[in-house]
């Protein structure tokens, strides 16, 4: 069970983060929430799609990592097999929380990344100042925090223009096993082609055309993902 505590420069002065263990935190995730500002890095490896939060029913942008629960096809041989790891993984074990209306940084005290071995990345120096490592974590968290608002606005605009469409994948894997993947959504390309000049101008001004086309292009990685799954099944 995660146990979040507010990060404190005295309480947490002596701990360090074993960064080699961070990526393993996502070993059992089949999708991970992503933000608009990382789309261009994600598109190198991942299908970027929408899914609905099971808790709120609201759309989320996610990188697709596998086709079933607990299946991360990028996690192989105890390593994350991609040059870019989504922010929501690489920022572990840190989270953004709120306390008395203020945004604060929290730490998952139960995370296996935490160690007392000072050969790893410490968080504070002797004076209690942020280490270079922590500064980098903070900038990642800031990118996520900003990114969540931007991504929500992006999704709202797409919804208003009816540009989101369900994406149903009927996949036959190499072992003849068939799977229907539901609950994913993508850009409605037909509808996109029908937008009028005014609507397109709106998207352009909001800098949404690039992420829209990035998402469309990223869908090709679904074939790569199927290939990864076939490899995992022993067919290569």
């Amino acid at each position: 069970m995660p146990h979040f505590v507010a990060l404190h420069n005295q309480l947490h002065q002596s701990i360090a983060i074993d960064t080699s263990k961070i990526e393993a935190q996502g070993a059992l995730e089949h999708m991970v929430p992503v933000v608009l500002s990382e789309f261009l890095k994600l598109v190198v490896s991942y299908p970027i799609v929408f899914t609905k939060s099971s808790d709120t029913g609201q759309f989320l942008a996610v990188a697709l990592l596998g086709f079933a629960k607990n299946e991360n096809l990028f996690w192989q041989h105890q390593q994350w097999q991609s040059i870019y790891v989504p922010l929501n993984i690489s920022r572990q074990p840190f989270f953004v929380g709120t306390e008395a209306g203020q945004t604060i940084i929290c730490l998952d005290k139960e995370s296996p990344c935490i160690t007392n071995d000072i050969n790893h990345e410490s968080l504070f120096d002797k004076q209690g100042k942020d280490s270079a490592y922590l500064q980098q974590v903070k900038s990642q968290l800031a990118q996520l925090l900003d990114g969540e608002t931007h991504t929500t606005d992006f999704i709202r605009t797409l919804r208003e223009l009816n540009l989101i469409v369900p994406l149903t994948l009927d996949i036959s894997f190499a072992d003849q096993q068939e799977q229907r993947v539901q609950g994913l959504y993508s850009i409605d390309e037909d509808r996109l082609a029908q937008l009028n000049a005014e609507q397109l101008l709106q998207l352009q001004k909001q800098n949404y055309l690039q992420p829209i086309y990035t998402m469309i292009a990223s869908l090709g990685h679904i074939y790569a993902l199927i290939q990864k799954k076939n490899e995992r099944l022993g067919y290569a």
Partner: protein
Amino acid sequence: MNKPVLSIVVVGGGTAGWITAGRIAAHHRTNANSPIQVTLVESPNIPIIGVGEGTWPTMRSTLMKLGISETDFIRECDASFKQGAKFARWTTGASDDFYYHPLMLPQGFGKTNLVAHWQKNRTQLNNESFSATVCFQEAICEQGLAPKMISTPEFSSVANYAYHLNAGKFSQFLQRHCCEKLGVRHILADVIHVNSNDHGDITSVTTAQAGNIAGDLFVDCTGFSSLLLGQHLQVPFIDHSDVLFIDTALAAQIPYEHENSPIASHTISTAQSAGWIWDIGLRHRRGIGHVYSSRHTNEERAMEELQRYIGPAFNQASVRKIPIHCGHRKIFWKNNCVAVGLSAGFLEPLEASALVLVELSATFIAEQLPARREVMDITAKRFNETFQYRWQRIIDFLKLHYILSKRTDSEFWIDNRDKSTIPPSLQELMELWRYQAPGDLDFSSNNEVFPAASYQYVLYGMGFETDFSNHAHLLMDKEFAHSQFIKTQKAIAHASSNLPGNRELLNKIYEYGLQTI
């Protein structure tokens, strides 16, 4: 007699008036410049009856056709989900006597008839009821679960559902939608006179506040008063209280004990000594009422039974007494006037037939709107045939609930089983069902209201036995039947672990809304 039908005037602004006006306006795409115009005239002084709080699943398609968002509808009409009805104490009157009429077909319906298999294998099936064996919905209702998830799009379902709603708020909500989005003209005025031409067609209604309002087709939604069809056109009322004895309702609204008390996702109907009590869960309150036959009990006794059902909260409740005239007009469309809603008729509230008849009437009028007056008599004739049939089918189906009861605690239940009170059409079906289970071919009309599955749920829920011994070969697809029973059990397990509580989902819809895709 030879002119286009362009101006439609709906008189009366309850749910019947607004649904009809809205369906016509949406279907014919009315706006300020369209050839067809829909006007709704409503008295500022007559309150709407507003006890129709239960719908059928058809309401989902009605709302969709009106272009209404389900999230808005749920939020603004205090709506909640309804997955059928639970009938308590109807068969024997014992405290553990109940059965369900769910909104989903039995598993494998159309491929096989599970009744014979269920009847034969009851012991192996743990003596579970028919509905519990063939449909997963009863289990969801018993657990207080919603019929969908927050990620399920608007109007889509995991389990089929209808609504419970606040009728007063629903009327206002429809009014706003019809006026703002569908181009319906709204006039607040009291009709004081109805004007006709030599052929008997209504040419206009004279109002106290807005002068004469002329029209080509008039829709009478004036409630029990039936101002146009009944009073002006003198269409007689056909009384059916010889079949359905209920003639009075005592209606109350009861708050929940706690803010987070569960909301039942089905209507609960509990039989009493001379009638039954409805119990409908909305978000902020329950609507509870006792309908009874005043020929078999009196108001004082009926009130006592209502008080016993409600408990201590009864003391703070105000109870409205509403007379019920069970029956309908002889015809519903005469000349250029058609009645929809209470002005056409009313049966007792069992099985929530009032709003569905409004929806069916509104659909017919909107989609079959005669283009010119000279063809209207043909449309009227067809409308009358269709709805005479539908009212009769509803009367039969409601009566079915009473004739299967084994209660002997009052003359009400005994009289209900008296053959002279049972319509011949129902007697005939009961004869058939001695040897065969209800099937779709028993109900071959396009205008059927209740499907064969509904008759199965009521018949076998109330302990009716069909003798299949002459057709024992029907039991040959044993393995298929067994697989359907297993499917139901799997569906129950799956739904139980995935569906949220009914109140939990409603709270989330208030907070986040449902997605449209």
